[in-house]
């Protein structure tokens, strides 16, 4: 059995007052694209910084390709390409000098690959870093992470600030890199991004991993947006619909009813109690809707873990 690209066990970083990361048990297989999903402050960057050995976990351990992220941090980083959430300041250095500087630290980079990626994203490496827009700084971050053909890419919110065309280019680059044999771990709060590229998704909430699912599995979550249109003159059984198990967000407008259904349709169908429905539509939820449904601050943690 191949060694896991990423393996964490009870990985915790407690900042007090309930902030931090708690008991993260996660396994990412080689050549997998894993999305780490959660809103701001959920603990995504904390987990990534633990993996990169920037911060010491309060408890637990993290391994990359079997190497301890703290004890073997130098060896780990030979295998990893990292893109931070915010690019640091490089002042008046030109893009090509930043690449050469960090490439020099690493020892080996492939200038042809740098050129290829820079051209792909139309990133002019001749300009000074301080002249770069936020999008260009992100592009430079992409070049720095991918330039040495790492076995594992750890990318913290990589597409923030990129325009849609460059986002699409980035997704293509991720897919090609995976096909070339690399593993990719990317954090995001943009669900569509995860939908585009990930094989599996971990959802983190208040520092705790609440769900790890295949993308298909998330799509199969039983959350549906329903639209029902009743025949003219039909008395709408509104009270019964509202009280049906799993039915939420009921809006009645003339002869139309819209609602969200979690779980099976049976309670809703029973609530209709023979009323004439002339039109019934069910929308498959996007990942965004799934996320929002399960991820509301008031939703119990267990809800998504079912």
């Amino acid at each position, binding site marked *: 059995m191949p060694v896991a690209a990423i393996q964490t066990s009870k990985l915790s970083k407690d900042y007090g007052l309930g902030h931090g990361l708690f008991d993260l048990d996660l396994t990412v297989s080689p050549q997998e694209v894993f999305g780490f999903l959660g809103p701001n402050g959920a603990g995504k960057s904390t987990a990534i910084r633990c993996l990169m050995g920037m911060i010491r976990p309060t408890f637990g351990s993290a391994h990359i390709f079997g190497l301890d992220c703290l004890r073997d941090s*130098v060896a780990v*980083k030979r295998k990893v390409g990292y893109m931070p959430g915010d*690019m640091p300041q490089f002042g008046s250095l030109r893009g090509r000098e930043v690449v050469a500087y960090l490439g020099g630290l690493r020892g080996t980079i492939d200038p042809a690959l740098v050129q290829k990626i820079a051209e792909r994203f139309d990133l002019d*490496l001749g300009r000074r870093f301080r002249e770069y827009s936020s999008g260009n700084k992100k592009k430079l971050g992409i070049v720095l992470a991918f330039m040495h053909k790492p076995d594992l890419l750890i990318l913290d919110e990589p597409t923030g600030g990129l325009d849609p065309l460059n986002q699409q280019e980035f997704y293509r680059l991720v897919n090609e890199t995976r096909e070339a044999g690399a593993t990719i771990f990317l954090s995001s709060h943009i669900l569509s991004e995860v939908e585009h590229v990930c094989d599996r998704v971990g959802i983190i909430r208040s520092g705790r991993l609440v769900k790890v699912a295949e993308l298909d599995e998330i799509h199969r979550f039983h959350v549906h947006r329903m639209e029902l249109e009743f025949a003219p003159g039909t008395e709408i059984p509104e009270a019964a619909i509202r009280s049906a198990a799993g039915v939420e967000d009921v809006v009645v407008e003339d002869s139309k009813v819209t609602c969200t259904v979690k779980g099976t349709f049976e309670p809703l169908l029973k609530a209709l109690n023979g009323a004439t429905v002339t039109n019934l539509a069910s929308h498959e939820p996007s990942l965004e809707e799934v996320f929002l449904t399960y991820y509301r601050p008031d939703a119990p943690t267990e809800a998504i873990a079912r």
Partner: protein
Amino acid sequence: MTAIRLALRLGQWGLIGFAIVGFIATFINAVAFYAVAGHTQAEREAFAKSFSQIAAQLTVLLPPAMRLDTVGGYVQYRAYGSLVIVFSIWALASASGAARGNEERGLVEVILASGLSRVRALAAHVAAFAIASFVAALAASAGLMVGAIAGQESFPIGPAIEAAVLLAAIAVSCYSLVLLVAQLVAPRMATGIAGAVLLALFLLNSLSRTFDSLHTLRWLSPFRYYELSTPLPPGGNFDVTATLVLVGIAIVAGGLAALAFQKRDLGSALFALRASARPPTYEPSRALVWRIPIVRDVYDRRLGLATWAVGVSAIAALFVVLTKTIVQPLLSIPGLAAYFAAILHGPIYQSFLSSLWFGVAQLLMAGFAITQVGRWSAEDTDGRLDLILSNPVSRTRVVVERALVLALGALIIAAVSGVAVGLESHYQSIDLDGGRLAQASLMLVPFTLVFAAVGALLAARLPRATVGILGIFAFASYLMLQIGPLFKLPDWVQNLSAFKLYGQPLTEGIDRTGLAIMLAIVLVGFWTSAIVMQRRDVGA
């Protein structure tokens, strides 16, 4: 008011730090006066007479002294002569930070987006600095008054407040001048050019006391208007007109800065060269320097390093030029000849350069170390260290490389300035021992590394507070050198000062004990720093 409060909040550590420095500087000097000037009027007059003769020859650098037989006169000369420089440096750092640093961090954009006009934003910074500098100057006045009480005397509050007003006025005028310069030039050069302008204005006034040709130009320097008042000694004066001129300079320069700020783009200079059209580049730099450890970091800092090397060398050459001008009249005073014979060893000019120039050189090198350590802290807080450590580089290697880069930088500055001293001495027909000059210059390297080692330890543990604490350490270390002999502190206490450990290598050769202690501090400091670095969270 909100903008002023925000500006004060952003500069609160500067205010606290410089208030402490001001208080300690005047308090220590007041206490020192009572310790060295004697207790009877006759003793104090004798002290003042001998001290005045020395002070008269140093007017090329420091304002003339008056009534050195009183605590007011002594503190005016000893403390306020330095405080005006210290407050000018504060104004430089604060104004360049407000004008350019905040802009680079995106803070100015956010503030302007809130609906505040550019003029009001700039005015808020000037107002906040005026408040801060006045509070810090009041702390300096308080130090004098407390020191006088410690000497069983009292000091009138009126002159103390006048001194505070004066100090705040010169600080604010410097602040506005820096703001103005910062609008005109590229962000990366703002601090350097503004610093050069302030230094030129300071030297213009100082040198005009010796060189008549500069008399007609000295009205251009705000420092001239500062020294027209001497409020602290009995019989001194507070020149209201000159003080108003300082305020006027602040208003005019601030107004011009606001005008320039309105005319320019954020992030650009008012006068920027248009970038020439060129095709985009997609290749990384293939320069060899980026592939060689240590060299790549020195190359990255090349502009700042060149500025330091040229600046320190220029000041060194200036000291050599002034040596004979200052020393020859002193030698003609019979009473001082015996004094010099007692305290100076070896050739007179060599001894003078050893005491005066290498004393200043140590201060400058401490400043260099603080700026480099400040960069380490910034690397930590702005995320650059994160990116460095995302490469296969151990934290220990980061600490070691930082130490070596700083040592190489210090060596370059020391070597270039040493050559400048040697060449200018030859030109001025001052006979210097080349070997000793080399030793004295090279000793500046371990001296600089002492501050760097302490800074490395602080940067590994408290990156956000490093520069402030290291600045206080340097100040305390220098103060220890000054007050140690006055208060007859034990040798081991005086040896806590890095300035003492440096010794007098130009005249007495290398103090091997001092060198060994310095090297021990450097090794222990960086070694401990590496251990602390291993155990801490980066960027947290």
